[in-house]
């Protein structure tokens, strides 16, 4: 069996989180999903701070990052990730319910690798997550 890369899902909304994990589970990816609820936590995880101080596993193969979050939003997280010499190599997929162009532009400017609008249609949503997850988690060789 192939070893999948870890997926870091940054999502504040528990419903969305559940739905996303559900969708990923459908493709047997749930074991490799680490979920954090906001930007601060995501950075703690990535930089091994706070409660993730003793984290031993390696960095995720892909980060699914929601934009609209309390405390620190996804754009800010993306900026910090992409300015770190090591972390910037991790592919980042922006997940958002917004179709606002400004978010899209800013995300790509900051170096986001993909941008996925969370469709309301669950089916579409599943397809989107599936595509992104498979692509990044399966096909891409991660940088160790």
């Amino acid at each position, binding site marked *: 069996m192939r070893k999948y890369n870890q997926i870091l899902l940054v999502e504040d909304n528990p419903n969305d989180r559940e739905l996303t994990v559900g969708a990923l589970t459908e493709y047997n990816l749930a074991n490799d999903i680490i979920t954090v609820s906001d930007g601060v936590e995501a950075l703690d995880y990535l930089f091994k701070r706070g409660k993730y101080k003793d984290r031993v596993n390696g960095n995720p193969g892909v980060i699914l990052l929601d934009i609209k979050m309390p405390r620190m939003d996804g754009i800010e997280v993306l900026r910090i990730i992409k300015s770190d010499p090591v972390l910037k190599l991790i592919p980042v997929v922006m997940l958002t*319910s917004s179709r606002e162009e400004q978010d899209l532009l800013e995300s790509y400017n900051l170096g986001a690798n993909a941008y996925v609008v969370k469709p309301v249609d669950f089916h579409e949503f599943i397809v989107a997550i599936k595509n992104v997850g498979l692509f990044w988690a399966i096909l891409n060789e991660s940088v160790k």
Partner: protein
Amino acid sequence: MSLFEIKHISPKNLNLISKSISVLTILTGIAVLTGWVFDIPLLQSFFPGFIGMSPGSAAAFILSGLSLWFLNYTITKSWQIYAWQISAFSITLLGLFAILQFLLEINFGFTRRFIDDLASNEMKLSAVLMSPASGVNFVFIGISVLIYSRKYLAAARASISLTIIISLFSFINYLLNSRSYLHPGTTYPMSILSSILFTLNAAGYLFFFAIEWKGISLNFPERFRYKWQPYLAAFLMVLVAASLRLWPLQSLGLRTVWVTFYPAVMLTAIYGGFTAGLVAAFLSCFTALFLWPVFVDQPFIKDYGDLISMMIFLITCIMISGVAEVMLRAREREKQTNAALEKEIADRKAVENEIRKLNEVLEDRVKERTAELLMNEEKYRTFFSTSRDCVFITSNDGRWIEMNDAAVELFGYSSKDELFQIKIPDLYANPADRIKHISTIKELGYTKDYSVDLRKKDGSIINTLITSTVRYDEEGNIIGFMGTIRDITERKHAEEKIRNANRVYALLSNINQAIVRIKDKKILFDEACRIAVDDGKFIMSWIGIVNSKINKVEPVASAGLTQDYLASINIDLKDEKLSGGPTGLAIKSGKHIIANDIINDPTMIPWRGSAVKLGYRSSAAFPLKVFGKTIGAFMLYSSEEFFFDEDEVKLLDEMASDISFAIEFIENENVRKQNEEELRKSLERFSSTLDNMLEGCQIIGYDWRYIYINGSAEKHNRRPKAELLGNKYMDMWPGIEQTEVFKFIKRCLEERVNHYMENEFIFPDGAHGWFELSIQAVPEGVFILSHDITERKSAENKILKLNEELEQKVIERTAQLESVNKELESFSYSVSHDLRAPLRHIDGFIRMLQNSAKAKLDEKSIRYLGVISGAAKQMGQLIDDLLHFSRMGRTAINYSTIDMNNIVTDVKNEIMATLMNDKYDWQISNLPTVTTDYPMIRIVWMNLISNAVKYSSKVDKPVIKIDSFQEKNEVVFYIKDNGAGFDSSYAHKLFGVFQRLHSTEEFEGTGIGLATVNRIISRLGGRTWAEGETGKGAVFYFSLPSKIN
């Protein structure tokens, strides 16, 4: 001619070269001779291996050198002459010997002593004898020197030139034949040294000749010239003597050798004197010594006897020569004496000649004087007869003695003879005059310019001046008179004319003065008439002016003797007779008319009687012309007949034209005065206009002083004008120099530049006023037209202020709107995120529920789940469309040029791709290019086309037509379908948000698409509208402006 000519070498240098050559030649000759004597081959030939120069040639060269030396030497002594002449002679002889030797194949034996031991040496043998060519050369040299002294210069030069040619030939021969030429016995070649020396020598001679030729004469003493004949004679004599002795008299033997030589020497001496005799004697010895061994083949002097006989011969010869010399000199002296005598005779003859010439000159003078005297008399006679003055000689008893032609002419007679018949007293006009005249002459002895009237043959009187003297006889008695008569009749006449002319001049001048002085016509006329009578001495004068109403001439002024003449004159211009007099004619013709003889003038008939009675004898009328039109005439009357002659009339014409001019001037003056008055009035009018103008008018002079201020300006200035007028601008308005307006007034004053401006003026009390100022250059200075615009300005200011406030408000409002817009934006952002999330969750979890609980749920429950999911999706679509709609109102517009065809096709294809249905009939026309925003217009077409497809989807054969047309300022696009259409009474609702005319069941839709279209098109500056009918399709139009600002 010489072979070369020397042009560029100075005589001094030529002389030097020539002398150098002579020295060189002598030295060479001596060297060769030395060679022969001491048997040194090198010295003999100079060129080893070549044949040497013969001793004879060497000797000849020495002589030639000497000769050349002497030639170049300034010859002062006779021996020098002899030296070169003998040298030349000897050279010739040596040359001749050489030739003879060759021709006769004999050896004269001069060089025998060199040959003795030469039998074995052929070359030397050949050298010993002089070559014939050298001989010829020496002959030429000798001859040229000899003949040179006779000045056969050209021949001498030619002769010398020949030697060069011969030498060169020899030289060339050497070059060509090499040594083969050396064979002795066959030829006698010239040595190479000789040929060189000959050339050199010849050059030396030619240089010398060139000196002579260049004009430097040798300047021989005369007696040295032409004295070569005695030597030639000596030579010839000796030659003859030798010949005689050698051949015909050979039998006489040796003892009597001298027999023929004695006479030769004697003859020579007699002919040529001592030296010639001596030369002959030595030549004889020479011949005897050298010829004899050759021809007689034995030496001449064998013993002392021979020597003694030679000595005797020589002594005898010297004696003979001495005697001959004495005789010669005696002969010469005699010759000289004779010459002296002849000279004396010639002198005397010359003196005689001179005296004769002197006499001739004297005689000539006498003749000349006589002729002169004769001429003088002739002159006097001519003078007497041709004098233009009458010259006379009379006797005491009153008879003519002599008179000239002028006298005959003076008295009007046809000849002298005729005049001779007339007695002198009869010639006096007044016999008493003669008695007085004669007594005056007798008393004074003469009269000078005595004025007497004489009578001519025809009886007319002439005025004369007589200048005469008394003639006395030897005893002192008066025998008569002589003198001249001058006719002064014409002069007197001329004097009279001048007097008249002076009168007229005075008249003219006084009238001119009057013209200057008098500015009134009537007075001028009176004065002119008075002057004519007083100064012009006319008996009467008057001025008539034409009365154009009755066409008659009316007298307006007169002076002098008139009585009732003028009252009755009645010059009617309509009547031919009454206007035929001078006055009428002058007025009619515009020219002066003269009636010089009133008594006999037919034109004067109407007035003759009274005129004659008043003493008028002649009259003249002069037209008076004003501005080219004759207005009357000036008439003058004289008591003399024929008073008006050409000169006077000319002056009087001038006077008339002066008076005319004066009248013109007066008229002009009147007109001018009238104009001035009018001008003054008009000025007054202008001035009052200015005074009453609403605009302020001010004039400032060049000195900055106020000249003029009108009422309005007074108000504008807010100061009484009396306060300003005459004062300086800057004194009245302190501080004005710093203002704009002052600058422009200054510029206008100085540069005459006009300026228009609006100026805010601050009055001394601090009040402000706005004025429109027009600053203009006028002759007086600067004209300032001012218009009070203070009120207008304050209104303008108010408007300006209002505008500013308005602008401020707009800015504020815009800012407000912008902030509202921003709020709206963040609101819609939130909506898009936060409203969508729950829907997504509903949909998501239902899906998950369906997955997990599908087996437990009944069909009804499953349908409920489907409805919930559909509602959630519907809500999501609604939110998306609303966001889209709101974004269309906010996004910035980017204009670009867009081909509508591309967009329409693109959008159509995109929509059709989702349908998988090609039942649609698309009729798309060619669409124009427009300038607009690409993404927006694409959304418009997307909405419209998808609508058309959607609403015609239930028709069997849907037809969609897309086209455009041009309106006035816009392009209109439309899309037409044959679908469901709409109820046109609701057409106004079509473009509103959430407005739908069909149910969702019939056609899906949110009701936002057309609202978005409407919003976009109105933002792009166009309009939208629609036409339709239920079930019959619809047409949707939108327009875009043709031009985008």
